[in-house]
Structure formats: C-alpha cells, structure tokens
C-alpha cells in the first residue's frame, strides 16, 4: 500500500523548497544586487557625463540625438555587465543548490525530509532557474526603463540578451543538475561540467577542420551556427541561436536527471552509480582532442614521410596517456581502467577509419565535377561581389545559385573553372593535414573578411544538387586566386543581368538598409545632371520616396531582357548598411556595431530610356513634372 501525495501538495512542497532556497541564497542575491546596481549606476553616470558634454552646442542648445546615442551605449554596456555578473552568480547558486546531492550532512537533512526525491530535485532546479533569471531580468528591466525614459528604445542586441539569458541559464543549470546526479562529489561535478564544456567545442572544431581540409569545396560554414558545433557546450546557449535545440537539450537533461535521481543509491556516495556516464564523455573527448592534436601535428610535419601513418602514430601517442590521466583524475585509481578500454579502443578504430576515408578520398568528393550533359543548370558566385555574403550561409547561397544559368555555354564556363580549381589543388596540395589547423582555428572567426571566396553549384538533371565553396583563406586556393589561372573566372557571368538581379546590393538590399541615394541622369543634351542626392532615411518622406524609386528600378531591371542594352540614360547610386555579418551577440560586436555604421558601402545601377516605372516614380515623388520635364524645385536638389 503506497499513499500518494496530491499534485497540490507536491506544488506546496516545491514552493516551500523554493522559499527555503531563496532564504539560503539571500546573501548571494544581495551581493548580486549591489554589484549590478553599482555597475549600472557607474555606467549610466559615465555615459551621461560624456554624452551630455558631446551634445552641448556652442549656442548652448543640446543635440538630443547625441544624448540618445550615449544612452544607447549605456544600455548595451550595462546590460552586458549585468549579464556577466549574473553568469558568475548563476555558478554560485547552482553549485550551492545541488550540493545537497554530495554533502553528507546536507544529504542526511534533505534526504530525510517528507518530500519525494523527484519533487525535491525539480523544486531545486526551478529555484536555480528563478534565482538566476529573475534578479537579472529585474536589472535589465531597470536599464530598459532608463533607456526608454531618455527616448532610446531597446536595441536588438539587448532584446536578444533576454532570450539568451533565459536559454543559457536553463541549459547550463539543467546540464549541471544532470552531472550532479551522476557524480558523487561537487568537485567531480564541477570538473565534469568544465571539461565537457571546454572539450566538446574543441573536438567539434577538430572534426570540422578535418572535414574542411579533406573535403575541399564543402560549404562547411553552414555549420558555424549549427547546434552540432555547440551540442554539449551549454555555455554557448548564452551566445544565442539554436533556440529549439537548447530547449530540447534542457528538457532532455531535466528528464534524465529526474529519472536518475530516484535511482540514485546513496545521496553521498564517493562515486555515484551513474558516474561513469559523464566520465566516459570527458575521457573520450579529452583523449580525442589530445590524440588529434598530436596526430595532426605529426601528419602535417610529414613524420616518417607518410602522413597517414604519422597521424595514427601521433593519435595513439596522444590519446592513450590522455585517457589514462583523465581516468586517474576522476577515479583516483588505475585498477578499473581495463574495463573501460573497450570504449577507448572503439573510438580509436572509428577515428583511424574515418581519417583513412578522408586521407584516401574514398568518396571522391574533392575531385568530382559533373559532366555537362548531366547538368540542368549551374551557378557561380564571387562572394566579394555578393550582397548576401556574410548574412546568408554559403550553403544557402550555393543552393540559390544552382538554378542561375542554364545555357550550355554558361554551364561550360562554370565547369571549366571548377575543374581548373581542382587541378590546382591536386597539383599543389600534397599534405592536407597542414590545412586542418587553419580550418579549425579560423573558420569561425566572426569578421567580415572571411566572407569571400567563390561558390560553384549545379542542379543536376537527376534532381541532385552539387555545391562547392572554395575559401581563399584556409586553403591553397589563395595561391590559385593570385595565379594566372584566375583569368579563368567566368567574369561575364558576374556582369550578367541575372547575377546583378540575384546578388547585387542594389537589387537585394532591404529598402530599410539603404541610407542614401544619388540620381545622376543625363539631360536632353546628354550632360549628366545630379538631380537628387542625400535622400536620407531619417526623413520619413525621403525614406518613402527612396523606397518608391528603388522598387521602380528593381521592377524595371527584372523586366529588362538580358540582351537588351540601349544607351544608358543615367546612374542611380545607393549607399547602404550591410546586414550584420554574424548573429552572435557578443559585447564586442554589439558595441562595435553601435560605434561604427557600415553605411559607406555603395552600389550603382544603370538606368535606360525604356525604364518606364523609374520615370513614373520620378514624377510621383516630384523630381520630374508630370510632362516629363525636370522639376527644379524638387525637395532633393541642392
């Protein structure tokens, strides 16, 4: 006979536990509140002092926009300061809250309470979430109110922080909770948490670097923001992105923790029954990283004159000691190592086999160029001349480009270029292990200069898509780019109307990103006439007029046949802000993007006499009169 506890009672018990935790963490919360409050006040004081000094004009008036900018900087720096202070305190609360699983005396007290283990664990976890999130939201809210009071709404980076904080906190706390249930002591739990969080991204980078080095042309940057690169690194949830993955990750950790906590034999065992789970993960990850490090090092130095053999030697030399040392750190003894060697051996076999597949190019990926007769359409993108570069992944761009060109002569130019690139690789790239370092260390570098290289893609008649991305920074492609073979680049495709329509800033930039527009149109005598300039976004009327013009020109370009090239009747130039290249929300990027505007980038479009919509738009916004003559008194001519 088992008496059950009603859901209402469980809730009441959980709430009691929360109140208890709140009381026990009061000291830490007060310290957090003091630090966050003082930091916010200091930053506001400095920002306003500097901002108001800058805003004062000679005539004693104040430029309120400058003050708003200062508040904007306050908003971001203060929000990030609170965010990082929170991260430190989340660690303190979390370790404290789950120490009941490891501390013998606490276990005696909490284990004997009339509350089920699962309810208690869930209550503790929710307490950890709330203690981490609510006080921080409170301070972020205060910062938001101050900003809005100065007329500065929340900037995107700060609004993203709210979600990032929530995801980061729940993911990290749930992962720690799971490790706490598995491990027997708090130091082991902390060590496992740090080791997994550090080791997983490094291991993922090694895998990505290796794939990029051997599968030449693979658009692997597709995975830069992927959960695969962050899967066991919940600290990355604080950076943002992969919302669904982090929610699922949290749910999985929580579910596993709840399931295991009842099965836990003792609340204070030195080595808990599920300890082997995290320890296996850490040991294998560490052995993999050290093994790959030595293996790739030896192979790239061409030890023995046989890189693959050198890799196997280096991998074995690095991974085995790393595995043994990691085992000793976690178990404090060596007797149980033989039982765990099967997993280690399995990992070694898999790594060596996969590296063999890479080394001998068993799949033929790096050599493959489809035959012309198999190709339905093809595409080519020079990322330096592509508006979407940096904002869209190369994979997405390659996917888009596959249908760009269908004519056989265009397709031939692309395959010829593709073959010439592969030839250069085959001739010069004798030891691809050396490329792993560059690929793994620099491929995630969040700077704009990484957004170049070329994309080649094909839509085959069979329905398959072939996509390749040749990156100039991390491979011998840079050598190729600078060589005479560069002339093989299909430049006429880059000059085509199709390419302009699909990849130019003029055609693709969202109208809200266009900050200025200049119209240079020939008059009846054929002399260029600067008829409008500085059509600024800040002016609502100007923004609407600019959009009208832009839409008209875009419609004309889309309707313009590829072959029709009459004499140009003028040029329209736009200045535009590039979309932010990367979606992470680091403080560096946030402040950098606030201080510097990327509005000096321009793009132009020729206009032709037959561009009917453009002419109508000029009349509509008042630059031309309704009879088609130039309106000298239009609001944009200076």
């Amino acid at each position: 006979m088992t008496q059950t506890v009603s859901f209402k009672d469980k809730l009441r018990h959980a709430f009691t536990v929360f109140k208890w935790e709140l009381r026990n963490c009061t000291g830490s919360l007060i310290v957090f509140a003091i630090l966050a409050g003082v930091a916010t006040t200091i930053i506001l004081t400095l920002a306003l002092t500097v901002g108001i000094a800058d805003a004062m004009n000679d005539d004693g008036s104040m430029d309120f926009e400058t003050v708003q900018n200062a508040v904007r900087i306050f908003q971001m720096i203060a929000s990030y300061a609170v965010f990082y202070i929170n991260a430190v305190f989340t660690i303190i609360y979390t370790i404290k809250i789950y120490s009941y699983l490891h501390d013998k005396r606490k276990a005696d007290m909490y284990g004997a309470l009339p509350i089920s283990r699962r309810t208690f664990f869930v209550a503790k976890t929710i307490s950890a979430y709330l203690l981490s999130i609510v006080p921080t939201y409170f301070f972020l809210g205060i910062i938001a109110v101050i900003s809005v009071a100065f007329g500065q709404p929340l900037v995107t980076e700060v609004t993203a922080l709210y979600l990032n904080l929530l995801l980061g906190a729940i993911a990290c706390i749930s992962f720690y909770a799971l490790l706490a249930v598995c491990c027997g002591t708090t130091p082991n739990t902390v060590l496992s948490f740090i080791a997994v969080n550090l080791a997983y991204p490094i291991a993922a980078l090694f895998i990505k670097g290796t794939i990029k080095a051997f599968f030449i042309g693979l658009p692997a940057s597709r995975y830069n923001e992927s959960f695969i690169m962050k899967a066991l690194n919940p600290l990355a949830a604080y950076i943002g992105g992969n919302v669904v993955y982090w929610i699922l990750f949290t749910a999985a950790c929580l579910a596993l923790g709840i399931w295991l906590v009842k099965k836990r034999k003792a609340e204070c065992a030195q080595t808990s029954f599920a300890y082997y789970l995290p320890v296996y993960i850490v040991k294998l990850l560490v052995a993999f990283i050290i093994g790959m490090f030595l293996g790739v090092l030896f192979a790239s130095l061409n030890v023995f004159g046989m890189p693959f053999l050198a890799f196997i030697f280096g991998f074995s030399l690095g991974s085995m000691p790393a595995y043994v040392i990691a085992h000793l750190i976690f178990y404090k003894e060596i007797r149980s190592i033989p039982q765990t060697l099967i997993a280690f051996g399995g990992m070694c076999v898999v790594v060596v086999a996969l590296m063999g597949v890479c080394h001998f190019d068993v799949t033929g990926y790096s050599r493959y160029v489809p035959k012309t007769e198999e190709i339905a359409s093809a595409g080519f993108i020079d990322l330096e001349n592509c508006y979407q570069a940096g904002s869209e992944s190369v994979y997405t761009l390659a996917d888009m480009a596959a249908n760009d060109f269908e004519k056989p002569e265009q397709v031939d130019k692309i395959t010829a270029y593709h073959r010439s690139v592969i030839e250069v690789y085959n001739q010069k790239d004798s030891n691809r292990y050396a490329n792993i370092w560059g690929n793994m260390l620099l491929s995630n570098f969040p700077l704009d200069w990484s957004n170049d290289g070329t994309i080649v893609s094909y839509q085959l008649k069979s329905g398959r898509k072939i996509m390749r991305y040749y990156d100039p920074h991390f491979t011998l492609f840079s050598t190729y780019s600078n060589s005479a073979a560069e002339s093989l680049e299909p430049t006429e495709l880059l000059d085509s109307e199709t390419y302009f329509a699909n990849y130019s800033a003029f055609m693709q930039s969202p109208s809200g990103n266009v900050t200025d527009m200049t119209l240079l149109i020939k008059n009846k005598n054929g002399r260029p006439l600067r008829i409008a300039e500085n059509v600024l976004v800040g002016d609502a009327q100007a923004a609407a007029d600019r959009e009208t013009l832009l839409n008209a020109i875009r419609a004309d370009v889309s309707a313009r046949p590829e072959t029709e090239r009459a004499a140009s009747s003028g040029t329209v130039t736009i200045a535009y802000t590039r979309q932010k290249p990367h979606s992470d929300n680091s403080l560096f990027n946030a402040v950098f993007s606030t201080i510097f505007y990327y509005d000096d980038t321009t793009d132009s479009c020729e206009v032709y006499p037959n561009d009917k919509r453009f002419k109508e738009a000029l009349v509509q916004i008042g630059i031309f009169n309704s009879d088609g003559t130039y309106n000298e008194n239009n609001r944009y001519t200076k």
Partner: protein
Amino acid sequence: MLEIKGLTKRFDKVVAVDHLNLQIDRGAVMGLVGSNGSGKSTLLRMLAGVFRGEEGEIFLDGMPLFDNPAAKGKCFFIPDFPFFYNNSTIENTAVLYRELYPNWSDAAYQRYCTVFPIDPKDRIINMSKGMQRQAALILALSTCPQYLFLDEIFDGLDPVVRHLLKRILIEHVAEHHLTVIIASHNLRELEDLCDRICLMHRGKVLMERDLDSLRMDYRKVQVAFREIPNVPNLFAGIPVVSVWRNGNVFNVTIRGDESSFMPALEALQPAYISAMPLTLEEIFISEMGAAGYDTNSIL
C-alpha cells in the same frame, strides 16, 4: 510497525547492511548497538530515506518507506552530525519543517523551546555540539513524529539534558506510542531508555532481544577456590560465554538464570561464589567476543 525485509546496502565492495530482517512494534524503544562499521548508521539512514538499499525493502505501517512522503512524514531522523546553514536559527529552520511535516505542532514547538535551555533566535552554527543536538531535538519533537531515528544522540549532551531527553522520550512513548530507534555506543544511557536491543556486527543482526530478558539471561559469576579442582574442563556442562581467571578466582559470564547453573558450580565446592546480572556493556562485550570481536582478537 516497522518491518525490514532482506535489506542490503553496499558501498562499492563493502557490505554495510547484509540481508537484514527486523520488526519493530509501535511504541518500542530500540537501541541499536554494535561494533564500529557494523551498519548502525547506515541502517538508520535507510530508515530515514537518505540511502536506498540494493536489495530488500522497509515497510512502515504497511507502506513502503523509500521515497514515500506520506510515510516519511511520520518519521524524523537526527544524524550524528545534524546539518545547519550558517544563518540557520531554530526559528527559521522551523519554517521549512512546519510546511513539510504534516503533524507539525506549533504548541509542541513553543513547549520544547522553553523546555530546552536554548534561544530559538540564536544562530545554530555558533552553538556547542550539545546545543546543536538540542536544537535538532526541538525541531524533531515539534514534528510530532511517530518514528524517531536518533544517531549518537547522547554525544555532547550534559547529564541534565540527557536526563531531560530520556524523560521526554519516555513520555512520548507512553502517551503517543512513539517508536524510537537509537544507535549509540553509550550503552549506559541505552540501558535506562531502551526496552529492546539490537546488536549488529558486520551488517548483520547478531541478536535482537527484549532488554530485561536479555539481562536476566546472563549472569556474571565470581567463583573462588582454595584449590582448583583437578578436572580437564572445569566448567563443562555450564553455558559459559567467557571466563577470566586471576589466580584461584574465576570471573565467569554464564548464559541462563541461576537455577540452571548454580547446582553445577556448587558441585565444584568453591570457597566463594556470587552471581549478579550483567550490565549492557558487559553483555555487549561478551556477545561481540563470541562473534570474534574482542580485545584478544584485536590486539
């Protein structure tokens, strides 16, 4: 009633409790005694729900005890070193217990706060060991438990408080049929309080008996001879537990009452003979010696 069936608990290769079976009736006061590492504290922790056994089960009034809040609400466990946070006072710790224990009594809380010489607003962490135990006792008794598990509760308590505690426990047993299980090495105190004794060694129960009958079952007999009889086995036929000789004087521990062994002893024509009941400590040493755990086998 508390029933323990085939309970086993291992820590790696160490078997702390080994297929233990025990039945404790309501209103009993049981002393758990045994050698160091015999499994007393582990058993108490399993009764409290801190540990989960690998095998077997514990039933409390017919309900499985492990992870059962309804059953655990009837119990309270005071470990050998009770845990309190740095800022814990009796008053603020009572808030947690008041909400979690269904039988919490504010009247009892007020009463025990006055009975024990301790200020409920003081930080427990700053108190002496004995006062910390008193704090734990105030909280425990305020939950009005039906089952009370105490581990080395007499450690650090002064004689007056020990006496007070024993009085309170006896009062609760008499009035509310409180069941108490006390693990302790302080056999003298157990002797005053317990009506049953469970002797544990290496995770097993060596003996579980009513204390009065246990004491009646053993006699410490001093036998002195002018000349020691020249027989191969002096005490043959007598259920001797242990013998200690000093010249012509023998101190013999004998199982059974006097009527069963006196005729045989008198037949040896001793110069002097006297028999008296054993203390619990003497019974413990005798039984542990019989189990191979005595000073001779240790030293």
